[in-house]
């Protein structure tokens, strides 16, 4: 019986094995750091896995001894006081041994860590002519992306071509933010008055329809939790087409569809145009997101799929998707407002899209 009592503690061990199973059950979403699409991200992952496996070995060894000891040497709580074990005070050999052991493990980790840190710094200096340069500016609580060499400004959705090096000059317009695309590479902070740079090269073949997930990773109050963005990795052709669209003469054109024209009017009347620039149409305030070619965007406010319903919800009450943000609610519940919202949605969705027939736009 005593033996079984001793073993009662051992029951904890199989229960603990349940925890690693969590890892297996966890599906990898768009925020995963395990399925990365850049070489720099893979280097970071490899280093992580090195520390992980070393840590796992340490944990298994320590716990094996730990549980063995407390099971083997356990006595009952009211064990005879006079039964005194050998009073060992220490053992110099053991002390030296288990000081050297962690030293070795630390060396195994320090060397690749220092090497990779230095390597990444060295590589960041190596730039080429055909790099894509993006000036990223963080605002409370959205992202501005400017392509100085291409003369393009956009917000919350970043386009980069696969296989080319993308360099991001990170600046903040107000408080700290942090630029993080988990499937590309580790994050870097945006700090007012400090020029931080991050770069990565999306793998050939990493272009896909679903844009990659990005997030602000430094507390910036208010809607920080909803300060998300997307990274659309394009093939060379897709990227060229997008650039052409953002620069082209099509920016001057708006469909003659009456709903869209009504939307354009409402966009001005309700004051949207006071903040949100649409190149070729409205000059807003550079402190607020640029909506040029909005119809090509895949998401609303960096958060939800860009469907007419979602965009209408966003315009109707910006606090639903993005609680805490600065965009005002423009509606008082008066007659005809729903129609105005629908018209603005139609107008925004027409931007950058081919001019479709009147019938198909009709809702």
């Amino acid at each position, binding site marked *: 019986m005593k033996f079984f009592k001793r073993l009662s503690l051992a029951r904890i061990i199989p229960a603990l094995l349940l925890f690693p199973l969590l890892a297996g059950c966890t599906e*990898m979403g*768009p925020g995963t750091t395990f399925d990365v699409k850049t070489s720099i991200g893979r280097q970071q992952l490899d280093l*992580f896995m090195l520390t992980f496996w070393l840590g796992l070995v340490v944990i298994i060894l320590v716990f094996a001894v730990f549980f063995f*000891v407390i099971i083997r*040497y356990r006595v009952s709580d009211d064990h005879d006081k006079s039964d005194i074990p050998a009073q060992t005070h220490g053992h110099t050999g053991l002390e030296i041994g288990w000081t050297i052991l962690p030293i070795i493990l630390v060396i195994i980790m320090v060397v690749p860590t220092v090497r990779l840190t230095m390597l990444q710094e060295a590589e960041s200096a190596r730039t080429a002519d055909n790099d894509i340069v993006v000036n990223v500016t963080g605002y409370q609580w959205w992202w501005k992306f400017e392509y100085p060499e291409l003369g393009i400004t956009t917000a919350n959705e970043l386009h980069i071509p696969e296989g080319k090096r993308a360099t991001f000059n990170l600046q903040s317009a107000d408080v700290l933010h942090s630029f993080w695309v988990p499937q590309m590479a580790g994050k870097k902070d945006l700090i007012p008055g400090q020029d931080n740079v991050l770069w990565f090269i999306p793998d050939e073949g990493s272009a896909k329809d679903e844009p990659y997930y990005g997030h602000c990773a430094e507390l910036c109050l208010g809607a*920080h939790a909803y300060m998300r963005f997307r990274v659309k990795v394009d093939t060379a052709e897709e990227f060229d087409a997008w650039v052409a669209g953002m620069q082209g003469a099509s920016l001057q054109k708006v469909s003659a569809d009456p709903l869209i024209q009504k939307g354009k009017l409402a966009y001005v009347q309700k004051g949207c145009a006071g903040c949100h620039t649409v190149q070729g149409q409205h000059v807003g305030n550079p402190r607020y997101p640029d909506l040029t070619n909005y119809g090509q965007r895949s998401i609303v406010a960096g958060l939800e799929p860009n469907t007419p319903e979602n965009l209408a919800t966003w315009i109707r009450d910006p606090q639903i998707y993005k609680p*805490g943000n600065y965009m005002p609610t423009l509606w008082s519940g008066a007659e005809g407002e729903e129609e105005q919202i629908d018209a603005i949605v139609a107008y925004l969705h027409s931007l950058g899209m081919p001019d479709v027939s009147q019938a198909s736009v009709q809702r």
Partner: protein
Amino acid sequence: MAISRKPVSQAPDFSGGLFKRPTSSRGLVSWLTTIDHKRIGILYFVSGIFFFLIGGIEALIIRTQLTTSGLNIISPDLYNQMFTMHGTTMIFLAVMPMSAGFFNYLTPLMIGARDVAFPRLNSFSYWTFFFGAVTLNASWFLGGAPDVGWFAYSPLTSTTYSPGLAVDFWIFGLQMLGLASLLAGFNFIVTIINMRAPGMTMFKMPVFVWMTLVVQFLVILAFPAITIALVELMMDRQFGTGFFNPEMGGMPIFWQHLFWVFGHPEVYILILPAMGIVSEVLPTFSRKPLFGYPVVVMSGALIGLMGFAVWSHHMFTTGMGAVANAAFAATTMTIAIPTGVKIFNWIGTLWGGKIRMTTPMLFALGFIFMFTVGGVSGVMHSAAPADAQQSDTYFVVAHFHYVLIGGSIFGLFSGFYYWAPMVTGRMFSEKWGKIVFWTMFWGFNITFFPMHFAGLNGQARRTHSYSAELGVDWLNTLATIGSYILAIGVGIFVVHVIRDIINGQKVDKDPWDGRTIEWTIPLPTPVYNFDKIPTVTHRDQHWFDKHPELAHSHEHGADAASHEHVEEHHDEHGIHLPGQSWYPFIMSFGLFIVVFGGLYSSLLMVIIGFLIVFVGCYAWAFEGIGGRHIQPKGQSWYQ
């Protein structure tokens, strides 16, 4: 029990006589004016538990909001206030005062002293802490709590982005808490250096006392950095200076450096007391001496020392440059060496012992288990390039809760179950204690283990919600369920502890078969601590007094010290107990008025407050020691 209340002959009770010197030993006044390290220790611990519950409620609100994605149970603003106050409360108002409770109650008992070196200063520390805690939490009712995170990164804290008083409450509250910690730090350094019992050399001190000493050095060397940072922030907010204002050329990043120069040693301020407690509990319940005592002590000191050389590992993603990142990654990893050595020595202590699974022992073993997990994930962060993916995610949240709850809190609970019978003279129910342990253990692990995966799958921390696409909803639901289990465990703890304080089984001495000299004292501890100051010849003195046959087998050179014989000066009155005093409380109250004057820009209040402090200071200085004499009951082991 013969207590003589004759006035001390050669110290007439003259005071700078604003108040009659309080003498009551019961009631509110006796607590407000107490200078007894044991009572102050109790005040600290009870305050710590109180704020631990408050911080826990804040944590439950946070977890509830995060149960699944897309919830809006509390607003983002309130959420930010919740996690800011949760962090600040747990660090400064829960773990630190709970540790301070142990420092106060135990240090004099473990080194064989009647009190700390400066008892009134000790009282001043507590009341300053108390008013600091009040200031910080008053913000909830006076316009909203601070919401900038416990690290309060600039420029979020500037008047532009944080108008209103919330950040000022945070600044002033923390300044008072810092002052309290600093003064306590000086006090305990003097106490430990100068008030050890005859024969107790530094390397015969219990490990807990050693860790206390290391922590106090960390406090006095680390807190100045945050004090200056807070002063500079206050000047920015109140007087428009440019320390952290980018428009004047100030660098927000400099705040981070100052903050973490304090912040990282602070982490060791939180964990080292628990390590000290575990180093006392394991030997007692293994019936063996601590394995490798000098190594454990030196590892602790080394961890403290190296804590000053690793602060920038909190800033790997701020663009410090490769050299700084590599250097701080390397220094951080080296901390794994002394930490690992400590864990090995604890296991060495258990090896070959007679292990009794009492409640304190369970908590101590739980500490080793979870601290090892937290330690390993800590080393994983230190690889700077990999940390770029981990920093500011739930992976980090999981890591530091493993070391702060699984480490600090479990260690402190272990110490509570171990030493609290000294205070109450009653035992706690082993059955309920074990239920508390297992509930907390599983609750804790279910809460925080899934967070590792949530973080690595992209869930950022300090966020009001998260995206459903990340696929971490169920991990968060699991964590929330776990947090409620953990809370139930803490709830059972509170209820059964209160019950057992009132009618637990009475015990009069040495219930655990303890090893160190505090267990020579009859329970509950008498006001004068020791009948007679013990003379120490061994580590684990009490153990060798009980088992003299074991005394000579080890520890060479023990005899040398035993001849150092100091006769305590005993006059016919008995043991002298210094008098209680109003002035520490009054001075703290004066500071409180200064702080509120500062908060509400009332020069008058500031002046009145400083006058109170000034007058209190002189009245205190000229008050004299006062006090009374008391005859010991005579129940000591050494009688």
